[in-house]
């Protein structure tokens, strides 16, 4: 009993981090099952698993909303940030530990609200985007969507305030800004974006519920409203949300590559000031590319085509740092490194296939087809998930004090990696070849896509096996794995200088760093 009490009332950043991880992995499993149900439905033309399109549309809503709001954002800015940031900067805890505990329980409320989708009689069927007028006229429960977003968004804002303060004021004495782990910068950039943009999303979804339940007319053209206002507000947050996910995940990848190549990060300042801050600055000027076929003025589409294409500069600089860090390294291939390198490949494919989508004249054909779904699953869904898994494996010995099984870790990686490519490569391909639209319960008007759909559904089964192996490996490792030691990866970063698992307060005496300290100081003396 006292163990449960300890976890429920904990203010320790590491435990809060683990709570975020457990909640987000639970959300991931549920949303993953939704994906399997959809793939089963789409394995052949016509109704297969359910005869009711609304059932399918609810799966579609739950998959998107829970994966993004319940899994990826909390796993990266909740779990990874909470667990690693104070340890990396040599702090005892975050700046506001109680606020931190409040934020994780808000997140749990949000996840529980999202899961209510499966028990209430009229679940939301508004996709994770909730576009009006459909979201205001559907019999589905749009309010559930609104309040899920608001709760998790509020958790995010609190975490943002907390982490910006922590990083600004609680670094170990002697740790200058240019000595921070790249991961710290990525979290900083991510939370700056959350603080700027989440309130806009909150406003947008709240106005939908006002329209639907209080009789206002913000999005009702017959009463002077405008349907596009919502889309602008929504994507003003939701495109930056992609970078909220993207930045921490490249942060994890770069840490892991540096550790397993035993090298400093190649051209660190370019990756930080050009890469992270370049993305933060450009992130707010590209959202129109989600509205390329929504009747936006032609000049606006051209302008944001240019800004969207320019995202390739910061992303390119970060990619060069990833690849350059391997140069003259001493590379070993433990499971975290496999995940890191796999993520690099997936995010290269996903990032580059985004370039045609930046071009408004190509998007008139590609948008809302399977090509788009394939693209963003590569760059955000699969690359992001593999990066999260990479982080869990990387910090696993620090978190639990134990080691996972290396062989099963690698088997899980390869199965997941192959399955992901089978699904999403075919998805992009079928989108371009046939124009098959996304969000279709039944693809009766595209019979030529049947074979691809079947292959994709098989890929989904493969990927599910990979994930299951990974999850079991973690649970078994945490319970019965061999003792890991304090620094199994021989990393120079500060989080590996304390014992595993670190006690409350992290170090007996708070660390100080010297003039020539660096988290990547692998030079031989």
């Amino acid at each position, binding site marked *: 009993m006292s163990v449960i009490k300890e976890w429920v009332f904990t203010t320790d950043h590491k435990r809060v981090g683990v709570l975020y991880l457990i909640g987000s992995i639970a959300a991931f499993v549920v949303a993953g099952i939704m994906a399997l149900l959809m793939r089963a439905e789409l394995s052949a033309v016509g109704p297969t698993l359910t005869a009711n399109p609304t059932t399918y549309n609810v799966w579609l809503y739950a998959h998107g909303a829970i994966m993004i709001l319940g899994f990826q954002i909390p796993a990266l800015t909740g779990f990874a940030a909470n667990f690693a940031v104070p340890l990396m900067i040599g702090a005892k805890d975050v700046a506001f530990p109680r606020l931190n505990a409040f934020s994780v329980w808000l997140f749990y409320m949000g996840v529980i609200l999202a899961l209510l989708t499966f028990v209430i009689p009229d679940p939301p069927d508004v996709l994770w985007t909730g576009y009006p007028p459909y979201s205001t006229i559907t019999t589905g429960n749009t309010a559930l969507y609104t309040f899920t977003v608001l709760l998790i968004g509020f958790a995010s804002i609190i975490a943002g305030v907390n982490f910006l303060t922590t990083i600004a004021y609680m670094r170990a004495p002697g740790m200058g800004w240019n000595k921070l782990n790249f991961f710290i910068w990525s979290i900083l950039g991510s939370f700056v974006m959350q603080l700027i943009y989440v309130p806009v999303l909150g406003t947008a979804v709240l106005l939908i519920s006002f329209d639907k339940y209080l009789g206002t007319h913000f999005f009702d053209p017959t009463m002077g409203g405008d349907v596009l206002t919502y889309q602008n507000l929504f994507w003003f947050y939701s495109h930056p949300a992609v970078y909220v996910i993207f930045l921490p995940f490249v942060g994890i990848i770069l840490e892991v590559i540096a550790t397993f190549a035993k090298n400093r990060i190649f051209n660190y300042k370019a990756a930080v000031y050009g890469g992270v801050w370049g993305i933060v600055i450009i992130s707010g000027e590209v959202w129109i590319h989600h509205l390329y076929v929504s009747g936006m003025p032609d000049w606006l589409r051209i302008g944001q085509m240019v800004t969207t294409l320019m995202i390739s500069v910061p992303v390119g600089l970060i990619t*060069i740092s990833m690849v350059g860090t391997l140069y003259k390294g001493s590379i070993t291939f433990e499971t975290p490194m496999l995940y890191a390198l796999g993520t690099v490949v997936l995010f290269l494919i996903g990032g580059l296939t985004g370039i045609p989508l930046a071009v408004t004249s190509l998007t008139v054909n590609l948008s809302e087809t399977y090509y788009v779904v394939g693209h963003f699953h590569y760059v955000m869904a699969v690359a992001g998930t593999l990066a999260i898994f990479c982080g869990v494996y990387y910090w696993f010995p620090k978190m639990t004090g134990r080691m996972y099984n290396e062989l099963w870790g690698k088997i899980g990686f390869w199965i997941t990696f192959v399955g992901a490519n089978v699904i999403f490569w075919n998805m992009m391909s079928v989108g371009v070849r046939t124009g098959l*639209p996304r969000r279709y319960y039944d693809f009766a008007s595209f019979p030529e896509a049947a074979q691809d759909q079947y292959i994709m559904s098989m890929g989904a089964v493969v990927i599910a096996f990979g994930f299951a192996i990974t999850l079991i490996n973690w649970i078994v490792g945490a319970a019965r794995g061999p003792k890991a030691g304090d620094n199994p990866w021989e990393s120079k970063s500060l989080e590996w200088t304390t014992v595993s698992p670190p006690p409350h307060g992290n170090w007996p005496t708070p660390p100080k760093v010297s003039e020539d300290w660096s988290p990547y100081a692998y030079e031989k003396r």
Partner: protein
Amino acid sequence: MQRHCKYGAGATAMTASGSVLAEKYIPTLESDKIFDPAAGWDRLWAIVLTDITVMGVAFALATFYLVWKYRRRPGHEGGGVGPLTAGAAIAWTVIPTFIFLADDFYIAANGWQLWNAQRTVPADRLEIRLESGMYSWDYTYPNGVRTQNELKVPAGKPVLLRMTSRDTIHSHYLPDFRVKEDSMPGRITYMWFYPKKPGEHLVTCTEYCGVMHSYMAGKVIVLSPADYNAWYEQEGAKVKSAGTPASPSAGGAKPTENKQKSA
């Protein structure tokens, strides 16, 4: 240069700035008078696909080479490389930045060029109004003829659709013509396409509009000009004699006219 102006000031500007595709995209007066946006799409797609493939393969090969070359093994003690010199760091920032920007602007220039053609509707055109609803496409021809889910058009004439919606947002997608645009309540949007040969093409909805979204499909039926004219006159006569719309009447609200720029 004069003939380029047909596709708008932007096209002229891009041609002047030296886009290599200028001559391919802009048809000459002697040959094909009307630019086909679908063919333009295919061409631009091939260019961008080549571009991203080259970049992806270059990065992937570099990664695989480095991973293989610097793997830890007996006799190879790597790691611990020092920081870049200031000069190298600046070079590794500025040069890639310019390469990426150059590629961005190359793609943007070509994209803009095609965009001007895609959004500039030829003057000699057939103009049809479209009102979408859950779950049908309702077309109204200039002479008052109405059809549902069947867009009959003559071959060889550009077709302009002025679109609105009476309920939720829909998107009128013609995969064979490589074009789509949303139709929304309270706004009027437009799209055009160029049917060249008689035949049938799919119309399908690509904006989630409700429960039966995936069944909201119709057809573009391209007829020979003679067949089309016969059909058009016959249906027009029916409308005139009846005094009311011939085929299924589209109920609901009138499209709200607004100040949307007309093509």
